[in-house]
């Protein structure tokens, strides 16, 4: 009896694995509207310097690459928000394209930012490229990479 049970268990392993995969694929995943909302929430949280909100909206494996070509991890990014290094007076994103994939969404567009640093304000307008990953039942930003619309002349 016991050996029959073990045989059945062994035989069902591959099926269990493929079953688990199909359950994951058919689980409700965020749609385009929710991806757009997640990105807007991310920009809003950055404007408010709301670290707890950003903690949820950013993936643990975040790569945040700014207009100066330097990239930060999630920890580094949150630290810069917390200590005021990264501070904005206004942050206006304009999403121009959203492409949905199986486990992710890619959003591109422009962001018009007025940053505050060292007592001065600086307008930073950039193209952004954002990848959201669908994890734990919500969108999480796993990459943002930006290029200045008009880089400063040399």
């Amino acid at each position, binding site marked *: 009896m*016991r*050996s029959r049970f*073990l045989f059945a*268990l*062994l035989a069902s*392993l*591959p099926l269990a*694995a493929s079953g688990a995969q199909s359950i994951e694929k058919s689980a409700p995943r965020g749609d385009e509207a929710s991806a757009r909302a997640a990105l807007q929430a991310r920009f809003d949280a950055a404007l408010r310097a709301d670290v707890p909100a950003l903690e949820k909206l950013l993936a643990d*494996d975040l*790569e945040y*690459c*700014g*207009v*100066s*070509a*330097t*990239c930060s991890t999630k920890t580094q990014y949150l630290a810069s928000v917390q200590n005021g290094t990264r501070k904005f007076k206004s942050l206006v994103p304009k999403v121009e*394209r959203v*492409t949905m*994939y*199986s*486990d*992710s969404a*890619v959003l*591109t567009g422009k962001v018009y930012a007025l940053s505050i640093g060292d007592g001065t304000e600086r307008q930073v307008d950039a*193209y*952004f*490229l954002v*990848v959201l*990953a669908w994890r734990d039942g919500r969108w999480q930003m*796993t*990459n943002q*990479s*930006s*290029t*200045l*619309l*008009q*880089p400063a002349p040399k």
Partner: protein
Amino acid sequence: MRRFAAFAALFAVATMMSATSFAKDDARIESLRAAEAARFKANVDADPKVLGQVLDDDLEYVHSNGELNSKKEFIDSLVAGKRDYVATTFEIQGVRILGDVAIIRGTAKVTVADGGQSRDLDLGYTDIWVWKDKRWQMTAWRSARMPPPAAK
């Protein structure tokens, strides 16, 4: 004894299944790295055939000077010589695969011919690839100029 054999068999099957999955991921990463290398080479060679294969029809290519090109605009500019990449060296710093999407992050030194002279651009870049029609295709590129090294 029989119980031990059954659990050993279970463990072996589970290990084989994960090994197959890891091998598949490794193969996908290798093919992605190869596609990236082919793309950089095709830029220098201004090769529309290779670029036609490795670039997605929906490509958004944002150059470090803020110029935005579609796939057609990008390939046409290379073929016409309006954009002339003389040489490129690149280093991939990170590759991540999320289902049918991949993110590559890296740096590149690009030598461009500009008005009879050549100049070097040091870039940090991110590109996004999608797995379509049984091959990787680059669908987005963002780059930014790296700050010059601090004077010593």
